[in-house]
């Protein structure tokens, strides 16, 4: 029936429905981002609670009502529109809130943690390599501009070096991580994180327990610290960081999505789901786990470098185990393997406790309960990863 109708439709109408669908998707995304922007900005307890309630309601109804399910399917069918609408929304939010220090700081923080979560996604959700030292690699990234920031090396290059440094130091535990399995590999990464922290604490060159100052990021000679106005507008010192953070996340998103929808993604998934089948069909388990571990740590390192430059300092405590767990909770809560889920979860975990004074003291307890509840009632996370469907890509390749 439906196919008959579709084939009977004239191209012009198909184009029009497609256009309408895109518009609808863009509207949904814009609305969600607008709500998110409000949440980031709002200080009034009543407003925050009302917004949260609205989000929970949208979330629940999106899956319970057929209209909601159709909206989700529509968004999944037009990923390009989603990405574009998201980018435009972020720019719009940044433009409106250009002077709000605290809101922009939080926006940048969410973007950079989501970038780190993208790295962890490659490692854990795709290739199945545990990494319980996310904050460690993040901190390694931040120490690099602390050391190199004043040397005259262009800061874009410093970011690259930070990524390489995180990847290289990750090499130190690559062998034990590859040789051990499951819990043991996880323990190796935990041990690495603890060792790193102790090393940073006793190492005087890196500032010991006090840590180091990190210079502000500067792009083509223009220091972010000196940006106080753009054209006729006064802007916050955090605006460029919020934009740079979002750009970095966009880049990480691009890399992760392209890898996922490629033969590399197939290899990652095969290695994670069934090492025996993967090896029998010729995949090298070590090669793919190492690839994911290195690229993932590089992403975390770059995000950490920018985070350090935004904060202006880094110390051994940046590499603490609790923060690594927070990064993991972002993955678990958002949905293993879904980067939009990681964004939502970053907001939930990093922003909401700041907003709700009532829960601030209990934030760790609440995270723990939240993660337990998710694992119990919705193990694939708030926004589960969609089954990869390569059919559209394959069709394009025939032409």
């Amino acid at each position: 029936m439906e196919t008959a109708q579709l084939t009977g439709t004239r191209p012009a109408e198909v184009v029009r429905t497609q256009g309408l669908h895109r518009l609808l998707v863009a509207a949904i995304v814009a609305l969600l981002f607008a709500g998110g922007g409000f949440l980031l900005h709002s200080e009034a307890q009543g407003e925050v609670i009302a917004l949260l309630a609205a989000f929970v309601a949208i979330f629940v109804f999106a899956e319970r009502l057929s209209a909601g399910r159709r909206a989700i399917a529509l968004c999944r069918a037009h990923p390009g529109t989603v990405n574009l609408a998201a980018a435009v929304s972020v720019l719009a939010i940044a433009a409106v809130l250009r002077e709000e220090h605290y809101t922009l700081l939080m926006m940048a923080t969410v973007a950079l943690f989501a970038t780190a979560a993208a790295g962890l996604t490659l490692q854990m959700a795709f290739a199945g390599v545990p990494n319980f030292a996310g904050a460690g690699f993040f901190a390694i990234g931040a120490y690099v501009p602390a050391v190199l920031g004043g040397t005259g090396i262009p800061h874009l290059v410093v970011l690259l070096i930070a990524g390489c440094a995180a990847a290289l130091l990750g090499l130190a535990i690559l062998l034990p991580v590859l040789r051990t399995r499951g819990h043991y590999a996880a323990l190796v990464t935990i041990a690495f994180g603890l060792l790193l922290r102790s090393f940073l604490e006793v190492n005087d060159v890196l500032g010991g327990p006090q840590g180091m100052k990190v210079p502000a990021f500067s792009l083509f000679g223009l220091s972010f610290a000196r940006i106080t106005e753009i054209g006729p507008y006064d802007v916050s010192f955090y605006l460029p960081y919020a934009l740079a953070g979002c750009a970095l996340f966009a880049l990480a998103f691009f890399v992760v999505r392209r890898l996922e929808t490629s033969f590399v993604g197939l290899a990652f998934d095969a290695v994670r789901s069934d090492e025996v089948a993967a090896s029998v069909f010729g995949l090298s388990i070590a090669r793919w786990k190492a690839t994911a571990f290195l690229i993932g740590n590089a992403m975390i390192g770059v995000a950490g470098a920018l985070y350090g430059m935004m904060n202006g300092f880094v110390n051994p405590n940046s590499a603490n185990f609790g923060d690594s767990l927070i990064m993991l909770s972002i993955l678990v809560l958002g949905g293993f393997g879904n980067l939009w889920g990681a964004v939502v979860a970053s907001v939930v975990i990093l922003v909401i406790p700041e907003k709700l004074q009532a829960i601030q003291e209990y934030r760790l307890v609440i995270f723990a309960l939240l993660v337990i509840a998710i694992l119990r009632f919705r193990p694939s996370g708030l926004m589960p990863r969609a089954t990869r469907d390569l059919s559209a890509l394959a069709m394009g390749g025939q032409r």
Partner: protein
Amino acid sequence: MSPLLACSGLTMRFGGLTALDSLDIAVGTGETVGLVGPNGSGKTTFFNVLTGLYRPSEGAVRFEASDLFGRSPQEISRAGVARTFQRSRLMLDQTVFDNIALGALGRVDLGLLPALVFRSRFRRDLSALVEKATALTRRFNPHIAASLFKPAGSFTMIDRRRIEICRALIGGPRLLLLDEPSAGMTHEETRHLMDDLLAFREEMPDLAIVLVEHEMDVIRRISDRCVVLNFGRKIFEGAFDALLADPDVQTAYLGGSQ
């Protein structure tokens, strides 16, 4: 002419247990060998050793001109050996295509650059692979070909077996090892699967197959030669007609203890 696969004195010990006991087994190009034996006689172990999952304790394994003794599963796969598993090993939450494509990943460019930057190249390879998977699955069940992008878990047991066989075939192996492909199927389903396999064989005359199977009917219909294992030892080798009459085989199957 030398055979495609030649194992001699192949032995696999697990601690004190000898699961394979100086096996001499040869398989020629295009030949189908039926491998039978009671449960625990070492059939699956033989496959695991052949595909490099277990490192054999002693013996020699030659495949064409190369020595495969103690090689890694990856090297053995590259040489042209593919298999199915007694207990289905599909990734159920991934599409049929993704599962089948695993069998061909050794033959495509797995570099990061085609994945990230030069996508047109990847898309061409992908289209070719989708076409191949469609043609292959259509032969076994047109329904699978029509639902290539549905999760493998949404298919029946028998279709999953078919998908597993397609995954093993798509890389164009020289030797195919089938470990009880009909386990858990009805007679009718088994007959179907074997018909499909025989039809496929016609088109790939060079493909050698070793088939582990309990149903004697199937073995009779499909195999050129039979090998019987018992306690890891080869107790019979020859034509099917001679198999049932063989006294050693009868004792093994009728519960004769050693």
